[in-house]
C-alpha cells in the first residue's frame, strides 16, 4: 500500500478516535452523569448585553436530585439590581421550591471562577423539589433576568398526596441551541478533515494542475 494511502487511513483513524473521545466528554453534563442537567459543556450563559435571551428548556431532572449548572454572564448592563452579582431570588414562587448552593455569587469573589472584572462564572448545585412538574426558575445575573424551565420527574404527582411514582415519562425537549452547540463544531472539523485528506491524496504540495 502506498504511503499516501497509509497516511489517509491514519488521519481517518485519528478522526474517528477523536470523535469517539469527544462524544463521551460532551455528555458529561447529561442525565446519566448528573441527574438530568442538559447544559452541554455546562455552557448556559447570558451573552446578550443587557437583554433577557429568554427561556432555556432543560430536560427532566429526577425529583430531589442535585445537579450542577454553570452560568456565565459577561459585562451585562445593570437594569435594576446590583451589577456585579448573580443571584437566585428566593421570593419567586418556583425558585423557593428549589435549593441553590450558593444562592448568589459576587464578581471576583472566591466562588467566581472567572478572574476578569465584569465577568461572573459560577457553578451552582441545584436540588430539585420532590413534586413532579415543570418549573420556571429564574436567576438575575448582572441585571439580566434569565429563565430556565426544568421538568421534574420521578417524584410525587402534583395533584396527589400519595407517594405513587410517576409512570409516564415526561417529554424531554432538546433545544435547537443545544443541538447546534453540540454538533456545530463538526462543520469546521469536517472541513479540516476534508482538507487533510485532500492534502494527503495529492501527496502534499505538488503544485500539479488538476487538468
Amino acid at each position, binding site marked *: 500500500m502506498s504511503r499516501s494511502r497509509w497516511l489517509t487511513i491514519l488521519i481517518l483513524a485519528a478522526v474517528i478516535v477523536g470523535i469517539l473521545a469527544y462524544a463521551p466528554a460532551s455528555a458529561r453534563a447529561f442525565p446519566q452523569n448528573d441527574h438530568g442537567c442538559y447544559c452541554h459543556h455546562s455552557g448556559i*450563559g447570558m*451573552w*446578550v*448585553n443587557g*437583554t*433577557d*435571551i*429568554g*427561556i*432555556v428548556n432543560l430536560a427532566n431532572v429526577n425529583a430531589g436530585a442535585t445537579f450542577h449548572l454553570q452560568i*456565565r454572564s*459577561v*459585562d451585562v448592563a445593570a437594569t435594576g439590581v446590583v451589577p456585579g452579582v448573580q443571584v437566585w431570588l428566593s421570593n419567586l414562587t418556583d425558585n423557593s421550591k428549589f435549593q441553590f448552593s450558593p444562592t448568589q455569587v459576587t464578581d471576583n469573589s472566591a466562588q467566581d471562577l*472567572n478572574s*476578569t472584572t*465584569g*465577568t461572573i*462564572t459560577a457553578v451552582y448545585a441545584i436540588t430539585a423539589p420532590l413534586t413532579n412538574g415543570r418549573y420556571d426558575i429564574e436567576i438575575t445575573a448582572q441585571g439580566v433576568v434569565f429563565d430556565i424551565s426544568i421538568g421534574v420527574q420521578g417524584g410525587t404527582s402534583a395533584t396527589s398526596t400519595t407517594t405513587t411514582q410517576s409512570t409516564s415519562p415526561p417529554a424531554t425537549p432538546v*433545544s*435547537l*441551541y443545544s*443541538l*447546534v*452547540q453540540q454538533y*456545530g*463544531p463538526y*462543520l*469546521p472539523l*469536517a*472541513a*479540516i478533515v*476534508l*482538507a487533510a*485528506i*485532500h*492534502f494527503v*491524496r*495529492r501527496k502534499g*504540495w*505538488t*503544485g*500539479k*494542475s*488538476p*487538468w
Partner: protein
Amino acid sequence: MVKTEPQAKVVVQRQTPAIIATHWVHVAVIVTFIATGLSTYFGWSLFVPNTETIHIACAFLIAFVDFPVHFFVMWKEKELRYLVILKKQDFVDVWQQVLNFVGLTKSYPEHATYLPLKSEYYLGKKYCGFQKLLFYSDLGCIILFGITGFSMYYSTTFSFVANLVGGAPNLLALHLLIFYYFTATLVGHIYLSLVPANWGRLRAMVLGKGSLEVHAE
C-alpha cells in the same frame, strides 16, 4: 480533462486595485468581527470592556459599508458577471469537483484558464461552479447572520423575529450555526488558496497580476 505534461502559463491582470482593496478590508473587518464574536461567546477578556461595542460596530460596517461598497466595486469592475450567472453546467461542475476532491474521479472541470489571444477566460470561467454557489450561500447566510445578530442585540425592537423562529434561544442557535458554516467555508477558502495550483490566483489577490494556465485546445 486530465493532462500530465506541464501547462503553459501566462501572467494576467486578474484583479483590479479596487477589488483587492475591498477584499482585504473585508478580511480585516471579518477577522475582528469573528474575534470579538468568539470573545463574547466564550467570555474571553479580549477587547474587554468594549468587545460587544466593537462587534456591533463591525456588524454595521459590514452591513452598511463593506457589503455595499464591495458589490458596487464588483459591479463597476464587471466582476459580478463571473459570479452571479449560474448555468446548468455549474451544478454539473460542482458535482464533479466534489467527486474529484474526495478522490472518486480524476476528472476535474477546467476553470480559471486563460485564452491569451482573446484576452478572456476559457468559457468565461474566471471562477469555478463551487465558488459561484458559495457566492449565493454566503450571501444568504450573511443576511441571516445580520438578522439574527441585530435581533439579539436590539431584542425589544426586533422581538417579532425571535417570535418568528420560536424564541430567543433559537436566534442564538441560528447565529451560532451560521458562524460554524462560515468557519467551515473559511477553512476551505484558506486551504484552497494555499494549494500551489492556485498560487497565481492568490498572488493576483495581493498584487493584481498572477500567472494562470493557458487553455490547451
